């Protein structure tokens, strides 16, 4: 048999397979729905991890930076003394306003407060902020009450913390150890991290916790995102300082790496498990769709159709069904989780970021690939089996 006639055989038997997809509505629909389900689950689960990664790298003001003692990885471990801190104020690249350089000296302690829901104690950061705090943290807005007065035992509370922890209502008095603080304001921070903190004046906090004239970090607002290199280099070059400067974005990325890996890992694991489960379901429908055709395949072979053209035709049919399923699943995943994506854009907060779904084209492509894989496996193996056994045996079995 010549190659051309072989090709034409492949063509005609493939055409036959594709034309009869509609005739086999039951089996075809089952395969399409099965695969659509797998792809939707796969894309949805991975989009959680993807959403987290995406917003982590995109979030954070690119012109904000944080200065810590060299060698410290977290704010908590850092310590900066008053003399050095003053040098930082003069570094190049820092934005300035009428009230001076936009560099805010900060320290913080962790206090224990009972949760409103469970009554169990949990850690809450109590942060002391120096001059220009509200210019540096330019997304902070007082929504109830007023700012704290420097030098007084007054605090303002982020909305998140206020909701979460007992005793953080406006006007309430907060007792921590021997100290008493009055809640004079509630603030928002565009959904950001400060919303789960308690803020007060740095000098008051230093006194209350015997911190002398030391701070932990200096948070600066740069003149522009491009100013960072000059700023960092100047600090590194200054012999009076042993500090490091990190862009806020990078700091957050660093801090959230563990969380991110966890989510990505868990997400992938969950996606893999659900995907495997769902794949078996889809594979099974696909498999039985082909298996019920063993008799048809045997008949075609008896009539003189070659095994290879039959396998190719069934593979083509499986791929068409899988593609339809893949498209449907991708459309479902995109359609449903599009809303979640809008929410991420609106709030850009870490807590919400963690649950934000981001259905990216890459994920859709991966979902499509997964559909194709199921199509190939679900179609190829039963078809190969049906085409490999001797014709006489195949005819007897049906």
């Amino acid at each position, binding site marked *: *048999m010549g190659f051309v006639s072989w090709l034409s055989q492949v063509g005609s038997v493939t055409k036959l397979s594709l034309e009869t997809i509609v*005739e086999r509505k039951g089996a075809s629909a089952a395969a399409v729905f099965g695969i659509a389900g797998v792809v939707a689950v796969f894309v949805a689960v991975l989009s959680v991890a993807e959403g987290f990664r995406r917003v982590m790298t995109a979030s954070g003001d690119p012109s904000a930076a944080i200065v810590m003692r060299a060698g410290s990885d977290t704010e908590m471990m850092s310590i900066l003394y008053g003399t050095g801190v003053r040098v930082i104020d003069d570094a190049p690249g820092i934005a300035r306003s009428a009230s001076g350089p936009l560099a805010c000296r900060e320290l913080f302690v962790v206090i224990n407060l009972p949760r409103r829901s469970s009554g169990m104690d949990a850690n809450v950061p109590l942060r002391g902020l120096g001059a220009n705090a509200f210019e540096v943290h330019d997304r902070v807005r007082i929504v109830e009450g007023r700012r704290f007065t420097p030098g007084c035992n007054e605090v303002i509370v982020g909305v998140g913390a206020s909701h979460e922890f007992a005793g953080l209502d406006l006007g309430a008095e907060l007792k921590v150890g021997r100290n008493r603080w009055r809640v004079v304001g509630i603030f928002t921070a565009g959904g950001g991290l400060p919303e789960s903190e308690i803020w007060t004046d740095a000098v008051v906090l230093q006194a209350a916790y015997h911190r002398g004239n030391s701070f932990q970090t200096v948070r600066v607002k740069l003149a522009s995102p491009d100013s960072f290199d000059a700023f960092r280099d100047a600090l590194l070059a200054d012999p009076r300082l042993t500090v490091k400067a990190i862009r806020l974005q990078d700091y957050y990325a660093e801090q959230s790496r563990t969380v991110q890996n966890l989510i990505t890992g868990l997400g992938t694991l969950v996606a893999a498990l659900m995907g495997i489960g769902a794949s078996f379901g889809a594979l099974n429908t696909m498999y039985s769709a082909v298996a019920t055709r063993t008799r048809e395949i045997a008949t075609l072979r*008896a009539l003189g159709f070659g095994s290879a053209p039959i396998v190719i035709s069934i593979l083509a049919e499986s791929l068409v069904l899988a593609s339809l399923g893949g498209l449907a699943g991708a459309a479902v995943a995109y359609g449903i989780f599009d809303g979640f994506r809008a929410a991420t854009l609106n709030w850009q907060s870490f807590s919400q970021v963690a649950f934000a779904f981001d259905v990216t084209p890459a994920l859709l492509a991966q979902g499509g690939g997964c559909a194709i894989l199921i199509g190939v496996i679900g179609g190829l193996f039963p078809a190969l089996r049906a085409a490999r056994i001797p*014709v*006489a045996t195949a*005819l*007897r079995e049906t």
Partner: protein
Amino acid sequence: MNGAAPAPADDLLVRVEDVEKAFHRGEEVIHVLRDLHLTIPRGEFLALMGPSGSGKSTLLNLLGGLDRPTRGRVIVDGRRIDRLSDRQLAAWRARHVGLVFQFYNLLPVLTAERNVELPLLLAPLTRVQRRRHVAAALGIVGLSHRARHYPRQLSGGEQQRVGIARALVTDPSLLLCDEPTGDLDRRSGDGILDLLQALNREHGKTIVMVTHDPHASARATRVVHLDKGRLGTEAPP
């Protein structure tokens, strides 16, 4: 002329010589056919009878190139088919034999005419040519008015007629029918037998029909019995 001269070689459509067929089932070897000789002249309507499991289908498969003998020669229309590869056999079947099955083996998703068209997809024909052949085959079996029906919309007898039309459509010299009336009631079965007889008499088709129904074998021009892997002949009725 003294005595019956043996038929000239080219009047023999089928020659089965010294054939043995064994199947392996695990360790066990099942000898289904042994020392089997059979010649079928052109134009014969041969009924192949025998108890269930005696190897009738196995022999028919050897004649139709669906299987190969363990030993011996199978020559159909001057061609040795017992040593062809699977691929060569498939191509050979498509051109030279028409197969009719007990359970029709129609593709349920195709209409009668498209079922009949199937073997023609393997031939170098245009769509118009195929249509003409299909119409002719459906005409011969008397089912022109059912061309657009699906198998599920046809009676058993009608489905078997479609099966026969599909076997006929490539105009093969040899028709092999494995219990073609085995799944039909007497009336539909008679219709099928009438049709096969007409194909044999009017269209000159050589037919081998497996059956265990004496009523069916009575239509044949010759009956052979297969028992324990060997053939015994019986005079024509």
